[in-house]
C-alpha cells in the first residue's frame, strides 16, 4: 500500500521548494523579513489623504474580485497577499479614478504572478476576468505605471512569507496540514 501513497505536494501542478536549512534555520532571514516588512507597509491612509473617489467598500469589492481570480486560477499562495500589498502601496502614491481601480487590481495581480509563481497570469485572461472592461494595452501600460510609482520595489513582504519559517522553528516535523490551515 505504501508504494501507492502519493507524497508529492501538489499546488497547481508546480512543486514548491522544500526546506533548505541554510534559509529556514537562519535567524537572520527572519529578522531581515521583519525589518523589510516595515518597508513594504502602505505609507499612509490613502482614503483620507490621496484618493478622492476611492472608498473603503470599493477596495473590498476589488480585492474580493482579485481573490476570486487567484482561486479560480489556483495561484500560488503568496500571489494574492502580494497583489493586495502592491495595490495598497500604489494607491498611496497616485490618485486614480474610480474606473481605474479594477485595472489597478488586475495589473497588481499580473506583477505579483510574475514575481511569485512560475506561470504568469496571462494578460488576455486577466482582461477576460474584467469582462473585457480593461484592454491588454491598458493593462501593460498600467503595469509599467505601477512599477515606476513603486520605484520597482515590488518584493513586498506579506504574512504569507513568514509561515514556513515559523512552522519550521515551532514544529520542525509538522506536515502540510498545519501549513494549509495557516494559509486559510
Amino acid at each position, binding site marked *: 500500500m505504501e508504494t501507492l501513497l502519493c507524497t508529492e505536494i501538489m499546488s497547481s501542478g*508546480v*512543486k*514548491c*521548494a*522544500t526546506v*533548505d536549512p*541554510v*534559509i529556514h534555520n*537562519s535567524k*537572520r*532571514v527572519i529578522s*531581515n*523579513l521583519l*525589518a*523589510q516588512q516595515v518597508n513594504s507597509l502602505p505609507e499612509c491612509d490613502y482614503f483620507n489623504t490621496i484618493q478622492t473617489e476611492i472608498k473603503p467598500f470599493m477596495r473590498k469589492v476589488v480585492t474580493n474580485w482579485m481573490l476570486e481570480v487567484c482561486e479560480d486560477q489556483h495561484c*500560488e499562495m503568496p500571489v494574492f497577499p502580494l497583489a493586495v500589498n502592491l495595490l495598497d502601496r500604489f494607491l498611496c502614491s497616485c490618485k486614480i479614478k474610480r474606473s481605474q481601480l479594477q485595472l489597478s487590481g488586475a495589473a497588481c495581480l*499580473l*506583477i505579483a504572478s*510574475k*514575481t*511569485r*509563481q*512560475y506561470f*504568469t497570469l*496571462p*494578460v*488576455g485572461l486577466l482582461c477576460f476576468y474584467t469582462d473585457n472592461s480593461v484592454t*491588454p494595452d491598458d*493593462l*501593460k501600460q498600467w*503595469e*509599467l505605471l505601477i*512599477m*515606476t510609482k513603486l*520605484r*520597482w*520595489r*515590488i*518584493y513586498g*513582504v506579506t504574512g504569507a*512569507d513568514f509561515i*514556513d*519559517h515559523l512552522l519550521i522553528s515551532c514544529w520542525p516535523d509538522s506536515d502540510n496540514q498545519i501549513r494549509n490551515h495557516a494559509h486559510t
Partner: protein
Amino acid sequence: MQKYEKLEKIGEGTYGTVFKAKNRETLEIVALKRVRLDDDDEGVPSSALREICLLKELKHKNIVRLYDVLHSDKKLTLVFEHCDQDLKKYFDSLNGEIDPDIVKSFMYQLLRGLAFCHKSKYCSFREYLSDTFCVLFFNNGELKLADFGLARAFGIPVKCYSAEVVTLWYRPPDVLFGAKLYTTSIDMWSAGCIFAELANAGRPLFPGSDVEDQLKRIFRLLGTPSEETWPSISHLPDYRPLSIYQPSMSFTQVVPKLNSKGRDLLQRLLVCNPAQRLGADDAMAHSYFADLNLKPQQ
C-alpha cells in the same frame, strides 16, 4: 535617455542588447541593458522583472549594482554599474597563469556575494541564484555576481531551462538527476566548479557535452555515489544507475597549482550529496582563507 551617451555595444544579454555608455553629467561609465517591450504580449518579460526587483534589493559590493531603470515608449533601459571584464575575457588575458593570491581573493569574494544572497530575505522569497552567477565580472580586482536574468522562482522545474548548455558544466549531480527542488547547496557546487576553473586559469573543471557525459566526468573524479554515500539518490526523478567509477584522478592532478588547504575546501564543495556540501558561510571560514589578502596586485 539624453543623460547617457552610448559608447559601444558590449554584447547580448539574456533578453536584450547591452551597451557601454557614459553619463553626460557625471562622466561615469555605465552599462545599459535594453529590454524591448513591443514584441511581448505579456507586458514586461518576467525574467527582466525578476532581475530588476532582485537587484533593487540586493546591494552588496560583490553584486553588480543596478542604478536606475528608465522607461520610454517601447523599451526599458536598465542602468548598471559597468564592469571591465567578464570571466572569459579575464581568463583570455591570463595566458594560462594566475597568481594564487588572486584565486584566493576572487573565491572569497564569490563566496561573500553568495552568502549575502543566501542570507538575504529574498531567498526566503524562494528566489535563488544558481546557474546565473556563471556570469562573473571583474572590476579592478573586485568580483561581481551579475546577470540575474535567469534567477527564477524556487519551485520551477529545471527541465524548462535545460537548453542552457553552458551552465551544464556548473550543475551538481542532484540537478542532473532531475532534482526539481532548488536549494542553496546548488550554488555551492557551482562555486566549487568555478574555484577549480580559477585555479587552473580558465580551464573548466567538468566541460560535459550532455547530461550523461557531465555525470560521467563528475563521477570519474568523485566516484559514483551510492545509497550509502547519498541516501535517497535513487528516488531522484531522472536517476538511472551509471557505471560505477572508482575515483581515478586525485585532486592533486586536477588542480595542481592549488595548495592543500585549497584542495580541502574544493573537496568539501564538490560533494555529490547536496546535504553534505559546505555552505557559503562555512566555506568563508575555511582555513584556506586564513592568510587572505583581499587586494592583491593585479
